[in-house]
């Protein structure tokens, strides 16, 4: 059976060109980049070339880019790094209710250590409330960390406005742009971003490699102790192949950005439109305007998301859900709850995230499959039965 991969917000298929660029660094180019002989020096150069490519994507200087082991590490590093470094100024941090766990859990850890954290809410479209943000600012606020785009409902946050608010109040602004990089052109200067996290595997690059942009002059504590790699911020012999792959991936992503975005958005809009037409009693979660091109998140009422995913899997379709039953913790998605969904509607949510390798044939197949599966699961659902009986009255 063919695999139909529609979980591109979870991760993406590594581009073959990226793989090709990486391969030499997994075999003959094995030198330690810190070594002074040619085998080492060449790998140092490969790393610096990749750094240049990342810097080009964000209109920043290459010495403002640090490589990490992924989005989570970037988030952990910078949030804690800034919190500790600016502790003499204050102990208050503002974040949002819809952040990725990499940010939320880091903030919780800081809370345990005595920092104070405020969580800005979002409206029903999944966009953070700017007035609330302004009101949360205190003289002791050192950092605002709010994501660029959400990983579950794809909503794009008013980053420019947040950057301005932060600047006016002399607060540092970090954004987790893991979902945005590769889909949105980001100019860190124009947007007043002081720090930004990204991860290679979300834009057809390798897994386990990411980067952190930190504006010149912003202080942050060293995160991994040891050697002097990454300008003495992150010790450890570099993941050269990963860094080269990340550089290639970011270059490719921004080369054809508009073309890919247009194609992806067209497929996404087609999917949402067809599902809305063919399946009754659904709810589209998150703004359809301020949204990543490939993301869709739809709740199918009266059914549960895990059983939906299992049935899609039987047809070779890969997707994800914010249902309590899939979460491991048995709580529904915090993002869906933050936009005000009741538990049982969050339960039936399905995230289909489209990428550059998807085709219209695949989307048609998914729509047909959904019509059948949703119908069958509703027939099986006591909530559906109750609803239909009440409708009849």
């Amino acid at each position, binding site marked *: 059976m063919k695999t139909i991969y529609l979980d591109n917000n979870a991760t993406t298929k590594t581009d073959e060109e990226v793989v090709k660029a990486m391969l030499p660094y997994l075999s003959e180019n094995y030198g330690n980049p810190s070594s002074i002989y040619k085998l080492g020096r060449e790998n140092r150069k490969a790393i610096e070339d990749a750094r240049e490519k990342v810097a080009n994507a964000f209109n920043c200087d290459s010495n403002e880019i640090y490589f990490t082991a992924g989005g989570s590490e970037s988030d952990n590093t910078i949030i804690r790094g800034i919190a500790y470094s600016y502790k003499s100024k204050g102990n208050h941090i503002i974040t949002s209710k819809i952040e990725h766990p990499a940010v939320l859990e880091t903030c919780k850890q800081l809370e345990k250590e005595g920092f104070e954290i405020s969580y800005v809410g979002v409206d029903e479209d999944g966009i953070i409330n700017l007035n609330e943000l302004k009101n949360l600012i205190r003289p002791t606020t050192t950092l605002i960390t709010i994501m660029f785009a959400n990983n579950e409902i794809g909503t794009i946050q008013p980053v420019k406005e947040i950057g301005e608010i932060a600047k006016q109040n002399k607060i540092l602004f970090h954004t987790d742009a893991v979902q945005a990089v590769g889909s949105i052109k980001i100019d860190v200067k124009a947007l007043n971003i002081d720090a930004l996290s990204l991860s290679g595997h979300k834009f057809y690059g390798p897994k386990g490699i990411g980067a952190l942009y930190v504006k010149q002059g912003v202080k942050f504590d060293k995160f991994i102790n040891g050697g002097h790699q990454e300008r003495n911020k992150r010790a450890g012999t570099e993941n050269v192949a990963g860094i080269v792959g990340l550089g290639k991936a970011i270059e490719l992503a921004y080369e054809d950005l508009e073309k890919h975005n247009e194609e992806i958005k067209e497929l996404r809009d087609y999917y949402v439109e067809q599902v809305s037409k063919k399946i009754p009693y659904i709810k589209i979660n998150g703004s359809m305007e301020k949204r990543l091109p490939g993301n869709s998140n739809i709740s199918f009422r*009266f*059914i*549960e998301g*895990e*059983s939906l995913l*299992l*049935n899609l899997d*039987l047809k070779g379709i890969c997707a994800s859900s914010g*249902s*309590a*039953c*899939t979460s*491991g913790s*048995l709580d*529904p998605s915090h993002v869906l709850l933050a936009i005000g969904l009741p*538990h*049982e509607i969050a*339960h039936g949510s399905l995230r289909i995230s489209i990428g550059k390798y998807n085709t219209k044939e695949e989307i048609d197949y998914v729509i047909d499959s959904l019509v059948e599966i949703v119908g069958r699961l509703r*027939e*099986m*659902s*006591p*909530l*559906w*039965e109750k609803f239909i009986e009440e409708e009849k009255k």
Partner: protein
Amino acid sequence: MEYSQKVIEHYTNPQNVGKIEDASGIGEVGNPVCGDIMKMFIKVENNIIVDVKFKTFGCGAAIATSSISTEMIKGKTLEEALKLKNTDVVNSLGGLPPVKLHCSVLAEEAIHEAIADYYRKEGKLTEEEIKQKCSLKK
């Protein structure tokens, strides 16, 4: 998290899905852990469960446990059906992932509620006796 082959078989092709229009007893229970709902319909003749159907709003494990437990109580006496434990259900499914064990409790409870409902309709036992016999929580 990995489901056993048997669980996959049951959620792929669940047995006894639906409702019984003239059911002798109906049990509906909700899962306090994740918010799922299971509804069990039984048809009883001469103290024997001659037919059973279910509806479930829940995960793969909830569907599979509903399905297999209906198979396990069909043709059984009420007393035998009441003896069915969620651990028996889990064992016959070849195990469940630990986070999914609570889903199997739902099936056991739904059966007990359906039988209690039957006894109530029959009107021979007092509420206290029914609670005892069906080991109802409330």
